[in-house]
């Protein structure tokens, strides 16, 4: 294609948006509204996912040792468990520390329950707190720790606890919430595509005469298609950029204003830095694709003259 033809197509693409002002506006509005709803749900889904991850990350394994385990064995165990691929962190909690933690957890009112227990008289065993990279692997990590214990002739571990039963239910719920979020977002994306491409189709039906005349004077199909392609892409880009700005500015304001209230409830929203790029890429990418797709499909229908 000659350079001046490329420039001509670009010029015509721009001009057509202006010439068909109301139709362009209709397409842009429909893209804007569809993507706005999609963007809001996307951020909602990201936050739900974020919260689910926060809850899951609080899951950990407590490994209680027998009472008579010596220091060398403790170091040996710590190394073995720490070397498991799932394990991200292992902390040793001595019996004295364990007593302190227990006292603290019981609170002021029930403090006297532990009266009489001190350094000399401590019923608690030494223990490890084990954290894993992926909370969903906690069960397999616990099993491997159990295997380490069984391989040892002394069987130095008394108990392994990770909230068996409760954890599985928690994961079922958080996973369900994630899948529902993904399904809603995909469903909205598909709906948006049809809604938008329909609007674009209507604007092009209004211009089938124009296409007919172009064919009559001997325009090749690609010559006719290019300006429509550029026009569709521009409409998609312009409206999705506007949508992205509205969604992200709105979201950052929301994060700002709710920070105080939500942090009291131990909830942290996804920050703009974490969600901004994904949202922008998805919205602008989808908007542009839909713009191009809608106009290309519709033009093709009227090219068969």
């Amino acid at each position, binding site marked *: 294609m000659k350079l*001046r*033809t490329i420039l*001509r197509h670009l010029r015509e693409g721009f001009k057509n948006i202006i*010439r068909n002002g109301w139709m362009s506006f209709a397409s842009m509005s429909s893209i804007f509204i569809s993507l706005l709803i999609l963007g809001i749900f996307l951020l909602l889904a990201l936050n739900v996912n974020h919260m689910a991850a926060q809850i899951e990350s609080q899951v950990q394994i407590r490994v209680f040792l027998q009472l008579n385990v010596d220091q060398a064995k403790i170091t040996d165990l710590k190394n073995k468990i720490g070397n498991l691929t799932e394990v991200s962190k292992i902390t040793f909690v001595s019996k004295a520390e364990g007593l302190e933690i227990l006292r603290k957890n019981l609170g002021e009112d029930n403090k006297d329950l532990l009266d009489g227990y001190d350094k000399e008289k401590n019923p608690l065993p030494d223990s490890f707190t084990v954290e894993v990279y992926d909370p969903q692997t906690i069960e397999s990590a616990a099993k491997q720790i159990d295997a380490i214990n069984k391989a040892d002739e002394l069987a130095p571990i008394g108990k392994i606890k990770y909230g068996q039963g409760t954890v599985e239910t928690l994961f079922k719920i958080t996973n369900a919430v994630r899948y529902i979020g993904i399904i809603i977002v995909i469903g909205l994306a598909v709906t948006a595509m049809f809604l938008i491409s329909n609007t674009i189709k209507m604007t092009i039906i209004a211009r089938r005469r*124009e296409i007919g*005349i172009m064919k009559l*004077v*001997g325009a*090749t199909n690609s010559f006719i298609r290019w300006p429509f392609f550029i026009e569709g892409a521009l409409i998609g880009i312009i409206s999705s950029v506007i949508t992205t700005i509205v969604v992200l500015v709105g979201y950052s304001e929301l994060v700002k204003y709710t920070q105080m209230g939500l942090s009291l409830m131990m909830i942290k929203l996804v920050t703009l830095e974490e969600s901004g790029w994904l949202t922008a890429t998805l919205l602008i990418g989808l908007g542009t694709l839909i713009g191009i797709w809608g106009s290309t499909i519709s033009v093709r229908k009227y090219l068969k003259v």
Partner: protein
Amino acid sequence: MIEMQDIWKTYIDGTHALKGVSVRIDRNEFVYLVGPSGAGKSTFMKLIYREEVPTKGQISVNGFNIGKLKPRKIPFVRRNIGVIFQDFRLLPKLTVFENVAFAMEVIEAPTRVIKKRTLEVLDLVGLKHKHASLPSQLSGGEQQRVSIARAIVNNPSVIVADEPTGNLDPETSQGIMNLLEEINFRGATIVMATHNRDIVNSMRKRVIAIEDGNIVRDEARGEYGYEA
């Protein structure tokens, strides 16, 4: 040059628009196509600029076998045929200049050439001073002049005109006919379907009459031959 050999055209709904038409139109001829509505005149013309393909028979325009043309080649054949309609078919949102220049942009002519040639043909049809107007700001006769300018801007060897004066008053029609005659004089072959008895009778060109899908009359210096 246009040549049809035993052309049949049957539409999907079963209508036989043409039933074995054979005709030869030479370079630089001026031909009137007359006949009642629905006789097959429009089909005859559509076959020439390849909006329709014949069901049977052979048609060649400027040496191209129109019926067997590859879709890819159609645009290039059309560039050598100018088409004029009763309803002008201008793009309402483009100016007069843009409507005409458009046909040259399609053939990827240089911008400088487009500008020069477009103003030249607008001058020929007498509308150079209205180049910046929109079609809606022009009279019917002026709009038809713009569509003629568009049809001739690429110097096609064949002009096909389907009732170009159908929507115009007698005086304006005469102006359009003078213009077509001028274009014919400059070398283009013209095929024009019309119901305008006065124009056919006053200009005395070749007349081909079509009735019910057949050529019933073909006279070198013919008359309209139907009651108005």
